[in-house]
């Protein structure tokens, strides 16, 4: 029996499971799929609102580093631009530049509590500030950004050095948070 030879049919799209693609060219349905963008717009709107609420125009004054974990406090004021002294367990840095090792700041080496490398840096900054603004009185503001575990012996030496250079207005940088003095839950401690 002779086999009938059939004329090949259109095979394009037969393996494709999507209905709209299979039927393409037959005029039955459009190949354009609708995408519901309403949830996406909702999500984007919520994100924008959240980010706008947490937006601050004051810019970065302090750089948070891994080796300085600042304590939290609640009763605080916003940061102002001022020279920053960073104290970690390893080093004392002034405006991002290491000045000396923290271990070197002890009364045995500096019995008058003044740290000469830091005093020199601070005096340079004070002189520059006075030269840049000769009409404005020098406010003597300085920010101490210290790790929570740094002992007071180092803090007092840094403060004495600040006073020596004319910086009498000391600001302690903290993370704004609930603070343990306000929240009585002991688990809230760092």
């Amino acid at each position, binding site marked *: 029996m002779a086999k009938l030879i059939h004329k090949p049919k259109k095979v394009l799209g037969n393996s494709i499971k999507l209905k709209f693609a299979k039927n393409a060219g037959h005029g039955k349905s459009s190949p354009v799929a609708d995408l519901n963008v309403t949830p996406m717009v909702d999500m984007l709107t919520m994100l924008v609102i959240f980010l706008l609420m947490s937006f601050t125009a004051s810019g970065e004054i302090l750089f948070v580093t891994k080796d300085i974990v600042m304590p939290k406090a609640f009763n605080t004021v916003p940061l102002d631009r001022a020279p920053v002294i960073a104290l970690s367990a390893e080093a004392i840095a002034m405006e991002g530049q290491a000045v000396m090792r923290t271990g070197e700041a002890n009364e045995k080496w500096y019995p008058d509590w003044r740290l000469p490398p830091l005093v020199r840096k601070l005096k340079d900054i004070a002189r520059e500030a006075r030269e840049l603004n000769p009409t404005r009185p020098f406010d003597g503001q300085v920010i101490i950004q210290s790790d929570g575990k740094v002992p007071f012996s180092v803090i007092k030496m840094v403060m004495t050095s600040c006073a020596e250079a004319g910086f009498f207005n000391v600001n302690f940088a903290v993370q*704004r948070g609930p603070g343990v003095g306000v929240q009585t839950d002991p688990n809230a401690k760092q």
Partner: protein
Amino acid sequence: MAGGGAPTPAKGGKKSVDFVVNLVPTIDLLSVLISFLLITAVWIQLARINTDNVVNKATDRPKQSQSQAKPLKILLTDSAVMVRIHGSNPVSVSMGDGMLDRLRTVLTEFKKKATDDQKVIVAAEDSVNYLVLIEVMDLCLDVGLSGLSVADPSTFGS
């Protein structure tokens, strides 16, 4: 969805009441806004506690007007927090659990009798951590004692 801005014509020549809003510019604007805000976001809120630098060995300090009220002095040691006003016996609050609650009670009692410009001098022993100093200063501010200074322990007895 997200098609043209004109009303879609319905079958039969009647004008449809459905109005399709073009959401593409909205999505574009929101995406740009989110990118900008994400890049400029500050995730850690930093602030400061302002103090007066009166560490004892600091000299050449400019003269300032002194408050008539006697300052409240707080000394932080490893074992306790001592609170005293000039001439009176110190009140001791031992360190440990609930120290801040007990200290709050003492400071609140003092605040009731204090004036608005009451000065507070916080001193600490060498081994006391910066964290404890900030906790006590935050507590003072929370109670309403705002004129904070930091000093060395030798000022506590004077």
